[in-house]
C-alpha cells in the first residue's frame, strides 16, 4: 500500500526503515480507505522481519504486556491482543 519504492542499495545491516523510499506522489485518502476495507488476513505479511534478525535479533521483551512509559505519558502495550 502507499506509493513507495524499494531502496536498491538497502542491506539487512541497516535499520529496516531505510529499505523504503517514500514517493513524491501522495496517496489519495479515498484509495487508502478502499484498500483498507478490502484487506484480508491473507494479504498481510505476518513475519516481516525474519530476514532482518541477523542484524537485529528478536527481543523476547517485545511480548511484554503492560504499560510503557515516557515521562508522564503511560500507554498500554498489548502485543497479544493483535494478530501479529
Amino acid at each position: 500500500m502507499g506509493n513507495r519504492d524499494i531502496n536498491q542499495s538497502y542491506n539487512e545491516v541497516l535499520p529496516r526503515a531505510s529499505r523504503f523510499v517514500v514517493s513524491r506522489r501522495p496517496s489519495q485518502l479515498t484509495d487508502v480507505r478502499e484498500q483498507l476495507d478490502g484487506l484480508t488476513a491473507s494479504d498481510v505479511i505476518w513475519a516481516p522481519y525474519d530476514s532482518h534478525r541477523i542484524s537485529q535479533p528478536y527481543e523476547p521483551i517485545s511480548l511484554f504486556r503492560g504499560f510503557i512509559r515516557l515521562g508522564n505519558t503511560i500507554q498500554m502495550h498489548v502485543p497479544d491482543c493483535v494478530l501479529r
Partner: protein
Amino acid sequence: MVSHGRKVNQFGLPRSEVFALIVHCGLLPLCNICYEIADKGLLCGFVERWHRDTNTFHLPFGEMSITLDDVSSLLHLPIVGQFPIFDEVDNNEARALLVELLGVEEGPANAELRECRANVVRLSWLRERYQVSCAEEQWEFAARAYLMHLVGCTIFADKSARYVKVCYLPLFRDLSVCGGYSWGAGALAHIYEKLGDASLAETKQLGIFITLLQVNVKS
C-alpha cells in the same frame, strides 16, 4: 502534518568529538533514516482506523498495531532498559536546565523561553547552540544540543513542528548512561499518545512506523 526529515538529514552526523560522546547513547540510528516526505493520504487512512482505548488499528479482519518489535527492527532503537522518565518542568527549572546542561547564560536562556512562551526551545535555536558549543569546544554541551534536536525532530516530535520540550533535557544529563534507556518504548508510548490525539499532526517518525504497515501489507 510535518516532516522534520530534511532538517535531520541536512544537519548530518555530529563532529567526531561529539560523536565519540554519544556513540553509545542508542539514538544514532535515527540520524540516517528520516523520510523527507510524509504520505498524507496513507497516514490519514491509518489514523482513521486507530482506536485509543486499545491502541490498535481496527481493520476488516481484526486488529493490528505497532509493537516494540517493529520499533526495534525498523529503527534499531533499544527496547530493553529503563523507561525514559522525567518530570514536567516549570519556567525556573527550564532555565536552570538550559544553564546547567547546555551551558547557556541566564540572559539568553530567559530570552529563548520568553520567545517560545512555554517551557520549550526552538529546533533552530538548538542547531545554533550546537554550533556555538562546538566553536567553544564544549563537547558535552554540543552533544546534548545535538541529541535534543535529534529527538525533537524524530521520536519526540510534536505538532508544534518547531519546538522541543525542555523537560527531555535531564535524560541527557549523564551521556555515558543514556544508552541504558529503552528509547524504543518511549518512542512507542509517544506515538500511541499522538495517534490517540488523532490530531493529524503526525510526525515523520509516525511516517516511518506507518511505512511498516506498508511493508506488512502486500501491495
